[in-house]
């Protein structure tokens, strides 16, 4: 057969980006269901940490009356600082574990629904790696989207509920940089979770014989 065949069957990253973005857009609501586990887990995580970040921002400048109000609401500073307790972290880790399992499950379903499409791609000459690339990039988009939505939801809820409880100083002393960093970090975590979740399903899909993939019901 022809020489240097590896260079004759290609799927450039520019095409992977385009194809997987369009696939996601076309199946937006279906993929939102897959992504919702991610949104909720990240919202919980960012809410938990955002509450402490906001209190940490307002505490030094707070009037004694406000400080009393914060303490009587059940928030206790340790060594003069607000931060997550061991129990908070344990809950966050648990929620992320549940999320990881949920994401693998949701992605397995989503990939199974598309076996026929995968079989078709292979008939058209797709390598196993193309299938993996397409699924991984779709999962990355879902991670970015779900992470952004979840972290904005979590941080937003934290700020709004604290503001409703303790009033204007919460907004005037908002630790913008800290919250911004939290948004970025939790979104990155969502991308990582989404990628971990899609690895196994994508691997299963990519290794299927085209005849078997095509035989599956849509």
């Amino acid at each position, binding site marked *: *057969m022809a020489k240097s065949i590896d260079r004759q069957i*290609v799927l450039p990253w520019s095409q992977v980006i385009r194809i997987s973005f369009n696939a996601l857009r076309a199946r937006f609501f279906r993929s939102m269901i897959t992504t919702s586990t991610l949104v909720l887990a990240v919202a919980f995580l960012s809410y938990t940490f955002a509450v402490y970040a906001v209190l940490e921002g307002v505490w030094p400048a707070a009037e004694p009356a406000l400080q009393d109000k914060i303490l009587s609401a059940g928030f206790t500073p340790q060594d003069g600082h607000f931060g997550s307790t061991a129990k908070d972290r344990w809950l966050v880790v648990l929620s992320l574990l549940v999320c990881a399992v949920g994401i693998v499950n949701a992605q397995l379903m989503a990939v199974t629904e598309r076996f026929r499409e995968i079989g078709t791609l292979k008939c058209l000459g797709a390598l196993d790696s193309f299938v993996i690339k397409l699924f991984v990039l779709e999962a990355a988009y879902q991670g970015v989207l779900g992470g952004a939505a979840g972290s904005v939801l979590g941080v937003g809820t934290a700020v709004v509920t604290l503001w409703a409880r303790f009033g204007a100083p919460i907004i005037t002393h908002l630790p913008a940089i800290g919250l911004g960093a939290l948004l970025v970090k939790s979104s990155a975590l969502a991308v990582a979770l989404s990628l971990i979740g899609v690895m196994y399903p994508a691997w299963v899909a990519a290794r299927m014989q085209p005849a078997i993939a095509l035989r599956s019901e849509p």
Partner: protein
Amino acid sequence: MSGNGAHNVVRLVDVTKVFRMGQEEVHALRGVTLEIKAGEYMSIMGPSGSGKSTLFNMIGALDKPTSGRVFIDEVDVAQLDAYELAWLRCRKIGYIFQTFNLIQVMTAIENVTLPMIFAGMGRDEYMDKGMELLRLVGLAERFQHKPAELSGGQQQRVAVARALANDPAIILADEPTGNLDLSTGEEIISLLKELSQERGVTIISATHDIKMINVSDRVVWIRDGRIDRIEDREKLQVSIGQVL
């Protein structure tokens, strides 16, 4: 290249296929030996469950035989690695399916151009050729439509255009008219016949559509995983004449 001395584009030697269904073994193919010449229009006929589709998958390198050998252009498919198999499916063979198997989230033109993207063509080149192919099958105006917005016959024509994307030597069609009404089925059959005559493409079609017989150069009848008989065009017309 074509003509009477045409080379074998596909050769099967004693191919068997066994599927394991739990404890049971199902013998889908029980030793099939077959030669298909370049440029031929061949139909594989047989009742459902006769092994037609399994044979189709073997010829198209979509599944591995349990024993025996499959040669495409005299290359043993079993010897090919993943890259070479993908190359073969991308450039040598065009597939057409009963259920069309277009990618639902892509437009007609995106479906047609995908094999050309895999083959490494540049954007201008694949868009030009994609439109030319859609024009050939009479769907140029509908290039932006998604499969759900096209009728069955139109979807199958997009699939034919896609199968032609990389100028394959072989077009494999698995029940291409199975999901189409009578007249649309005839349209697809005459489109395939035209392609075989004008482009010299080898057409191999698994079917139980009697209309296919009229255009076939040879018909292979499959029964219980074996070749029952092979009939040439001349003979076929005689026998159809007698039946009618």
